[in-house]
């Protein structure tokens, strides 16, 4: 099984560079300045959280890193290469799970793997089962999506985005729709997986506490136009508990900075 092992070991985390990116959206006569001259760099293996009020362009920026949208000016570089379209090295996990209801859990995780060349079908199955096990759903590999709870669905979505072994994981408010208990479990799991699988993670959220407990760095955005307001380094030991006082202190600093700019 050398090649499965190789497949799992391959792809070290990548670094990202966002350089003077601007983006406008037009709907009818209204023209929104979603992002205004935003520059940000993300180191290899770093966990960066983007927070800010709705409409600050944080999701737009994430979509640009994914290659789903292109900047109107400026550029997005992944490992020095300009991003012009989606690529397997940058996988996205969405707000709603966006899982395919016509496929089983295994089928969903295999979807991206089947598009990845260089693997035999049996190896793909093995890799898929590894990630389904990693998110703790080994017993549910053949379940249908509608049979799973919201938390389990997001675990499947996580396994699906991890399976092609991307170097960058982009997460767009992935836990926003979950209950608090499930969410806290997933914080723990995500930190473990991040440490074990060595990914660069960009995580978008509007939950300041979530950002402070997960990120090495919290990037605060302001809206209209979308700009980076401030950055906060969070150098607390891991794994972190979202309920710990240290995390709360960091979160309060971010909230204070957010409030300093008027109501969100």
């Amino acid at each position: 099984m050398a090649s499965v092992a190789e497949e799992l070991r391959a792809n070290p985390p990548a670094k990202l560079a966002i350089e003077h990116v601007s983006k406008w959206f037009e709907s009818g006569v209204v023209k929104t300045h979603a992002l205004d001259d935003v520059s940000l760099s993300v180191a290899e293996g770093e966990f960066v959280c983007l927070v800010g009020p709705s409409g600050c362009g944080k999701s737009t920026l994430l979509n640009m890193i994914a290659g789903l949208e292109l900047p109107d000016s400026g550029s997005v570089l992944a490992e020095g290469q300009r991003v012009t379209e989606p690529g397997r090295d940058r996988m996205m996990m969405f707000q709603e799970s966006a899982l395919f209801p016509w496929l089983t859990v295994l089928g969903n995780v295999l979807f991206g793997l089947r598009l990845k060349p260089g693997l035999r079908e049996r190896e793909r199955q093995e890799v898929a089962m590894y990630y389904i096990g990693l998110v703790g759903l080994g017993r549910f590999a053949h379940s249908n999506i509608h049979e799973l709870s919201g938390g389990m669905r997001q675990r499947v979505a996580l396994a699906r985005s991890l399976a092609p072994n991307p170097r960058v994981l982009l997460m767009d408010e992935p836990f926003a729709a979950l209950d608090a208990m499930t969410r806290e479990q997933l914080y723990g799991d995500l930190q473990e997986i991040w440490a074990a699988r060595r990914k660069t993670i960009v995580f978008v959220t509007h939950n300041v506490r979530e950002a402070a407990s997960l990120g090495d760095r919290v990037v605060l955005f302001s809206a209209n136009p979308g700009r980076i307001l401030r950055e906060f380094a969070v150098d607390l030991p891991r794994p972190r508990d979202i309920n710990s006082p240290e995390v709360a202190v960091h979160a309060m600093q971010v909230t204070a900075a957010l409030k300093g700019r008027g109501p969100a």
Partner: protein
Amino acid sequence: MRRVLTALLFFTLLVVAWHLAARSGRWSAVLVPPPADIVAYLWGAISDGTLVGALVVTVKRLLLGYLCGVAAGVPLGLLTARFEWVHDTVGTMGLGLQALPSVCWVPLSLIWFGQNEGAMLFVVVMGTVWSVALATDGGVRNVPPIYARAARTMGSRGLHTWMRVILPAALPFVVSGIKQGWAFAWRSLMAAEIYVTILTGFGLGQLLNYGRDLNAMDQVIGVMLVIVVIGLVTDKVLFSPWERFLHRRWGLAKV
């Protein structure tokens, strides 16, 4: 089991009531034949082969036309959903033609093709294709855009996205569309067969109409029963497996 018994009891009572009504002497036996006469007719028609022959002719026409209609309708619906200009042209035409009861194709079809299989095929295809195309188009437009975005990030492009993401995502709509297409095809074929004698084959509709000509109500009602049974069997054989699959995978209520 209880539900089966209830249904069985209902139908038994229905037949008994019918029998008593026919025997009451209020109506002529020519107009209201007792159930036994109908059974006798069906038995005779099966024994001498007329019923089976007509059944084969009709089902052949129906399946051929229907499969052609679905085979054309699904790609057509995908095209109208994919290209705005196809939607504005062919899609608009389809919307108009779908509003036309498919029986209305019969006169035109007979003049164009003559009293033969070609005419029947045309009527059935016209009855099927537009409703299937419109349902497919609607289904594709209802697919959440996030599916295609997720697929793109995983490396899916173009035709792969259409075949592996958009089409399966639209499947519940497509299935209800092809089911509706079936209903239209079946009705238009029966109308066509009753409306005119087709020289190349003697179908169920003609058998029904001959029953009228012969004043044989046992034949009329007997053939009607056969037509009902075909409808039910088709639903079970052709559509139930799809609906069960959708129900199991999507967790949807039956379409």
